[in-house]
């Protein structure tokens, strides 16, 4: 744990007497009390021993957040969130609380890992078993770290980066998603817990896929994650976020922010597999996931490619976007969103064409089963100066059963008469003919659905790095269990 600045403690203590017998007197305290106010923001910042400018940055965000209203335009329904009835800071769990071995882990969770084909050693880590006892991930991480350092790539937690690379963080944090961007992003700006920072120097092709897998041990990234990736001119990085395996998490509200900045001739490939707890079959529980992801193609011929496979969460509210500012820059969005049982997803993308000859591609595949509600919401905006801009959008919905729903809400705003914008959309059902055909060939109904859905999602899955793609296929199958009789 980072040493605490005594002055900061004093400041916090002075701010309110309440804390005297509370957590602040105990510097090892794991939780901030419930609720959200300036003191909590100060506490979080102090816990992380942050510089004054960042504290002020958080406080500005918090003050602005108090003036904002929760957005209601999306097609998701959930009970009113009481933001004062939540914890905003929880330190990583001490190993003493963690299960001591796999025997202490919920067998259902282990069953899912089994189905996903996750190696035994990783299962323990994912289930929260005190990892060092199981396998030595530290040495693996060290090897990777050395290799990255040799290439000059910075890959660290956000908290570390604030201390080690303050100039980079200060100039880029909030440069794509401003502090006061939207309700959830602003909340995140005030209370973000931790996250990832990646910096790829000029002309460097990152020697490996950067995956949060490597950080399994390192961080309890928690509910308010903040990610910042910077690709300098001529560089390339592929970043994998998330995990196909459901991870232990007690926080219901998640509001992450991801910012990408890409300079001349550089590219970032950002792949996500999101499998947060979706709630039970009756729609009880489950994570609310309100995410703001945006990338800025700042340089000439820069490129951002988002690929996401969203199968988890009770509520998904997420629109990974590209601001195509540099001439000739390219934005891509490949998405599979699956809702089963009572899950609701309102997801899509925004492609903002500013530069000349910018182009974007959107391939969205929605899958709804059970009572799931799946909405594609996307914006293609072409500004007046975007000569020669092109967009291609393909937006498909697949329905399994007759109690689910699929909705498509495309917005297209074109201010340049020379722009080319194409939009294709289809809605289909898995037919009885297809199911029976597969069953006649020996596949069970569930295998059949899995094969058909994976075929339908192929255009997106092929964009994922190989190993991830294989796991994602299995994940789709597991997520659809029980969707056919």
């Amino acid at each position, binding site marked *: 744990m980072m040493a605490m600045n005594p002055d900061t403690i004093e400041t916090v203590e002075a701010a309110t007497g309440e804390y005297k017998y509370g957590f602040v007197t105990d510097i090892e305290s794991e939780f901030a009390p419930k609720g959200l106010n300036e003191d909590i923001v100060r506490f979080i910042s102090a816990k992380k021993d942050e510089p004054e400018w960042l504290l002020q940055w958080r406080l500005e965000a918090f003050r602005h957040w108090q003036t904002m209203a929760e957005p209601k335009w999306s097609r998701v329904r959930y009970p009113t969130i009481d933001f004062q009835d939540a914890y905003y800071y929880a330190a990583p769990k001490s190993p003493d609380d963690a299960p001591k071995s796999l025997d202490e882990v919920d067998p259902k969770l282990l069953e899912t890992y089994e189905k996903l084909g996750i190696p035994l050693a990783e299962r323990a880590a994912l289930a929260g078993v005190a990892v060092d006892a199981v396998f030595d991930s530290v040495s693996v991480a060290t090897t990777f770290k050395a290799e990255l350092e040799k290439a000059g790539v910075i890959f660290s937690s956000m908290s570390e980066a604030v201390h080690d690379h303050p100039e980079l963080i200060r100039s880029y944090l909030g440069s794509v998603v401003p502090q006061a961007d939207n309700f959830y992003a602003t909340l995140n700006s005030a209370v973000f817990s931790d996250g990832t920072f990646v910096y790829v120097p000029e002309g460097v092709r990152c020697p490996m896929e950067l995956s949060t897998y490597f950080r399994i041990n390192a961080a309890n990234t928690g509910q308010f994650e903040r990610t910042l990736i910077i690709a300098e001119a001529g560089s390339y990085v592929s970043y994998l976020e998330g995990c196909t395996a459901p991870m232990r998490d007690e926080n219901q509200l998640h509001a992450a922010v991801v910012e990408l900045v890409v300079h001349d001739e550089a590219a970032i490939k950002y792949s996500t597999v999101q499998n947060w707890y979706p709630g039970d079959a009756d729609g009880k529980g489950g994570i609310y996931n309100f995410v703001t992801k945006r990338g800025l193609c700042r340089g000439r011929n820069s490129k951002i490619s988002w690929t996401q496979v969203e199968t988890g969460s009770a509520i998904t509210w997420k629109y990974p976007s590209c601001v195509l500012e540099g001439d000739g820059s390219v934005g891509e969005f490949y998405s599979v969103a699956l809702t089963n049982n009572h899950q609701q997803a309102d997801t899509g993308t925004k492609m903002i064409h500013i530069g000349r000859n910018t182009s974007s591609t959107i391939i969205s595949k929605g899958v709804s089963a059970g009572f799931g509600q799946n909405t594609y919401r996307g914006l293609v905006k072409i500004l007046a100066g975007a000569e020669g801009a092109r967009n291609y959008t393909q937006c498909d919905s697949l329905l399994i059963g007759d109690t689910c729903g699929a909705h498509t809400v495309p917005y297209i705003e074109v201010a340049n008469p020379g722009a080319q914008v194409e939009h294709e959309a289809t809605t289909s059902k898995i037919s009885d003919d297809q199911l029976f055909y597969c069953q*006649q*060939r*020996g596949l069970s109904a569930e295998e059949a659905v899995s*094969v058909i859905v994976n*075929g339908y999602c*192929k255009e997106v899955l092929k964009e994922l790095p190989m190993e991830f793609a294989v796991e994602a296929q299995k994940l789709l199958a597991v997520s659809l269990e029980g969707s056919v009789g």
Partner: protein
Amino acid sequence: MLSIRNLHVAVEGKEILCGLDLEIATGELHAIMGPNGSGKSTLAYVLAGREGYDVTAGEIVFRGKNLLELAPEERAGDGIFLAFQYPVEIPGVSTMAFLKTSVNSVRRYRDEKEIGAVEFLKLIRAKAKQLKMDEKLLQRAVNVGFSGGEKKRNEILQMALLEPRLAVLDETDSGLDIDALKIVADGVNAMRSPERSTLVITHYQRLLGYIVPDRVHVLAQGRIVADGGKELALELEEKGYAMLGLDDGEAAARETAA
């Protein structure tokens, strides 16, 4: 191999098969002919276990088992194969991958070792060659953009891979030109063996010129109305279903309902 007794089948409450009896011995190839709407395809679907085809009376015993208790995939595992009249398209799923999944599903059911990628590739190439199928077809999505003839050949390819004990061919000749018909017939004939039985369902005698049946049955109004040897098919070709007092169009409405 297969014993059907007094089979009654209803679709959406309407009786399509009404008291059908049929015995197929191991190693035999039987043909079922009949006018449109006589219930031929219904029989094929009931054997394969399609949902929505309600057996209201009678029994089907397949290799000593009560077939009606088994799910479609269990029937496939036990060795029933249906070559579809209208093979179904599955976008995005490569034919090769689909067939491997299929073969291994059936092998698992039979407690046999699953086939590896290399071995499977060898196997499927050999079988495809026999059927004069372009290998490129195997890379394409299942039946998507296949011509009528390619779809039917793909069905026979699957049959060859799955090595069923009872193969049911539902109007496999429909939509085939004479060259394709010969290739398909060769494929079926190559599969004939003393351990395997085949049921060929067809409206026309044409196919039976290439696949010579041991027995021919005529299905009309939901039951078998005539049995005979291969010469019965020729006779029907010559004289039409009218020789049995049947009007080819009479049951067309029932077919639509089915």
